[in-house]
């Protein structure tokens, strides 16, 4: 490995500096500072309304910010136009509601980005798409439309759609919250495998067992602030703040 890429390694893939955001009177993000290093799996947890989804969505500018800075590999996140589109294409995003393109087949969903954005040929895009669909276990559904798939299958296809762009990092915005309980694990399994493969990931989730098992670092948010962060063991076994202890108590016994 050359000197350059070694140096690059030290630049965080994602960095948020003093990020603030308001919805009217509501202060949804308060001076949020965060870095995600290459290959790191960061899990964001917190009560609903804590701003964790909003933070996740600011990283590819699906939500704008009022002040502060967001850097992707040291470069400021572009505000608009072609540069923003290119940056987004390099960051994967998986949504709570899957958001597969409803009028396209699963295969078309996965090949659309590579063909329209990366300019790949149909054959090239489809070959890689089928590999990915195989990997997430929905290759047999390739020629169906999303409505014909179960929620778990749709979410796995959505992950394949993101992977097809060969992203530098992936954001997961509550990827299992809209799923029936029996389908949660099939999606988490795919995510675990991604994490093991070295993908840089930001995961907003309520799945504490996933956080414990996979996270390199856990960030706890409440009221738009990062209240606490640490290794999963530290955080779950010895939470430092009262707010985090209350939250962990409230979700215990489930």
């Amino acid at each position: 490995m050359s000197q350059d890429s070694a140096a690059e390694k030290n630049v965080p893939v994602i960095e948020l500096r003093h990020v603030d955001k308001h919805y009217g009177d509501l202060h949804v993000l308060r001076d949020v500072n965060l870095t995600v290093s290459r290959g790191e799996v960061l899990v964001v947890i917190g009560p609903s309304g804590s701003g964790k989804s909003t933070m996740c969505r600011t990283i590819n500018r699906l939500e704008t910010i009022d002040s502060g800075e967001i850097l992707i590999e040291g470069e400021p996140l572009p505000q608009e136009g072609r540069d923003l589109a290119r940056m987004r294409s390099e960051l994967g995003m998986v949504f709570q509601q899957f958001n597969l393109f409803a009028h396209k087949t699963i295969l078309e969903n996965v090949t659309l980005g590579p063909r329209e954005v990366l300019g790949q040929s149909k054959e090239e895009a489809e070959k890689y798409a089928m590999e990915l669909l195989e990997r997430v276990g929905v290759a047999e559904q390739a020629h169906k439309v999303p409505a014909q798939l179960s929620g778990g299958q749709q979410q796995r296809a959505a992950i394949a759609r993101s992977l097809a762009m060969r992203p530098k990092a992936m954001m997961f915005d509550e990827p299992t919250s809209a799923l029936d309980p029996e389908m949660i694990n099939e999606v988490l399994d795919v995510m675990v495998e991604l994490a093991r493969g070295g993908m840089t990931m930001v995961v907003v989730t309520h799945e504490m067992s996933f956080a414990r098992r996979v996270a390199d670092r856990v960030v706890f948010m409440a009221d738009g602030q990062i209240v606490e962060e640490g290794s999963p063991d530290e955080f779950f076994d010895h939470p430092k703040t009262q707010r985090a202890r209350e939250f962990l108590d409230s979700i215990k016994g489930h």
Partner: protein
Amino acid sequence: MSARTQTAPSVRTALYEAPGPRTRRRIAIGTAVSAVLLALLVALVVRQFYVTGQLAPRYWSFLLEWPTWRFLLQGFVGTVEVALTAGAIALVLGLALMLGRTSGIAPLSAACRVVTDFFRGVPSLLLIYFFFLVVPQYGIQMPAFWMLTLPVALAASGVLAEVFRAGVNAVPKGQVEAAYSIGLSRWKTMGLIVLPQAIRYVIPSLIAQLVVVVKDTTVAYVVSYPDLMQNARVLITNYDALLSMYLVVAVIYVLINFAINKASVYVAHRTGVKIIR
């Protein structure tokens, strides 16, 4: 909340609960009474026609002759030509107006909004008078075909712009976010993701508007364009057969619009990938 396939319940079962025995009896009585009333009404009308001599053969016999039908057929072709051309122009223009309005470029958006509201609010007859009486005064001569087609198209484009906009607004925000997140530009997102879905949502409204276009073409007599209605009027003067001719023409218009509806159902089936959420 899982997003698995569900078959949509029919409107009937969604809006009304299944009738019980008493309701069923009431429905049966209501059906019988209205059938009797309807039969009485029809009998009354036919009797009145008979009394006033409208059923005399001389009012109807010309309908058995080929030249009559050839003339009507020519009118029919004229109507279809105007309706299709106006419909096509209105689709393109309506789409353009909607895209302009939702472009986010303030002056363009405002201009498209004014144009849309204008064409939507002004009666098509007034637009026809404008093209027939005002435009020629400025030295622009156009054939009767365009004096009819353009105003009809413009009037429809205003409505279609709004129909398209409703369709675009009905596409869930998540579809757009997903498109952005893989790096699609605004225009590609619109063209590849939003519009294809929006158009499927609004096919019924598009068809309804095409029916309106067909009906709007009946003011062709203003510019003496030989459409179905205009030719029917000529026949009426020739044979002094008001009632019979109007009845026949009314039936033809109903059939045209019935055909449009059937075609639309077919098209919707062909292109209609199920997008149930």
